[in-house]
């Protein structure tokens, strides 16, 4: 797995202060730090490169031009920018409908329906992405942020506005749903 760069953290504050003072280098630093991550997140949610590009740019523009709305009161900038990306994704769904490019109904059938024999190592990345996009909104979020973005449960909790325990429980259910989805089952727990 190729790294996405420095993990999102709370040490964005000095950069944010510089951005607020009009420091263009600080804007560039924040952009470099988050653009790939946001693009990756949005792409994983939508499954379309063109849409991901537009939404990632839109998210970064909103985030870096509306810092006056960002209050550093216990919520990190990283959480804030991911929330903007999440809202942009939801808006996109509302406007264009949720489109699953590789629906599980048309995905290649797996040979075994026995969970214990599910050969996840042999699955293609696209199959996994398609299966994730058929999960619920929160389940998608938690899996993408925890495993594709490599964020900690605490960071995901901050982004989703939940407790760490709730995120861990959600992650467990999401993995179970994904497993069943990969087996070809249609029953997905919320």
């Amino acid at each position, binding site marked *: 797995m190729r790294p996405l760069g420095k993990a999102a953290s709370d040490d964005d504050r000095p950069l944010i202060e510089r951005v607020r003072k009009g420091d*263009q280098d600080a804007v560039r630093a924040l952009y470099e730090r988050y653009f790939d991550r946001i693009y*990756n997140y949005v792409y994983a949610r939508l499954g379309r490169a063109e849409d991901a*590009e537009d939404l990632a740019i839109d998210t*970064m523009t909103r985030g870096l031009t509306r810092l*006056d709305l960002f209050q550093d009161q216990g919520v990190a900038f990283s959480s804030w920018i991911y929330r903007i990306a999440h809202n942009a994704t939801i808006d996109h769904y509302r406007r264009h409908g949720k489109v699953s490019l590789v629906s599980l109904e048309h995905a290649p059938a797996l040979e075994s329906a026995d969970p214990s024999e599910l050969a996840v*190592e042999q699955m293609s990345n696209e199959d996994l992405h398609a299966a994730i996009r058929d999960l619920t909104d929160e389940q998608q979020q938690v899996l993408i942020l*925890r495993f594709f973005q490599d964020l900690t449960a605490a960071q995901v909790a901050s982004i989703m506005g939940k407790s760490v325990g709730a995120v861990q429980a959600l992650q467990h259910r999401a993995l179970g749903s994904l497993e069943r989805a990969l087996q070809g089952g249609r029953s997905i727990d919320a």
Partner: protein
Amino acid sequence: MTPEVERLERLAERLRTVDPYVPPPGAKIRGWNLVLAAVEQSNTARSGVHPIRRLVLASLAAGVLLVAGAVAASADSLPDSIFYPLKGVLENTRGALTFGASDQLAYHLDLARTRLTEAQAMFARHRVDLADQALSGLDDQLNDAALVIQAEKQSDPAVGAAMENRLRQAIATHDAQLAGLQGQVTNPTALNAIMQARDRAAQALQTAARNGKGNGNPGTSPNGSGLGNGTANSPHPTPKH
């Protein structure tokens, strides 16, 4: 570790190995150009108007709106309105900006008509005190008009005479209205105020009729004894109560 947990761990590990979607370099450059342009525009907009300056501008705008609203509200206000003092200020301002004898006469006659309307409204509301004040204002305007005519007669007797005729017509109209009003009220104070107003109007006409060499003081005239002889030239065309 249960079999289920083991399976889910394997699945989680598999997810961690999925290659991330990486934006094409062109997308990143395009994004940076757009973000930079938006940030610069945002900074320009913010720095263009300092927050305190914005507050001052907003306060000024609110003040202008407030004054404009008060002015609009005062234009037709009556003596019992809170906006009435503002109306007086506006009238005085208008008077200070009125030049030329003819325009000044028009100004005083206009205000005289306004005062009479106010007096009628105050009588209708049984505010005799305010009606009396309005009638005093009417007299003041007619006297000022008479003085303007007197001064004009000295410089141009013909124009002065024409202006006197305008005053005479205006007073005749007012007197007719006052006479009608006099027939409607029963309050002695109100009756007295109306009669005094008619007398003072007649005195103003006398002032205007002088050739301008006098002191402008119309002198005194007993009630109903002014020009009220019932002729076409009388300022009291209708008999007094």
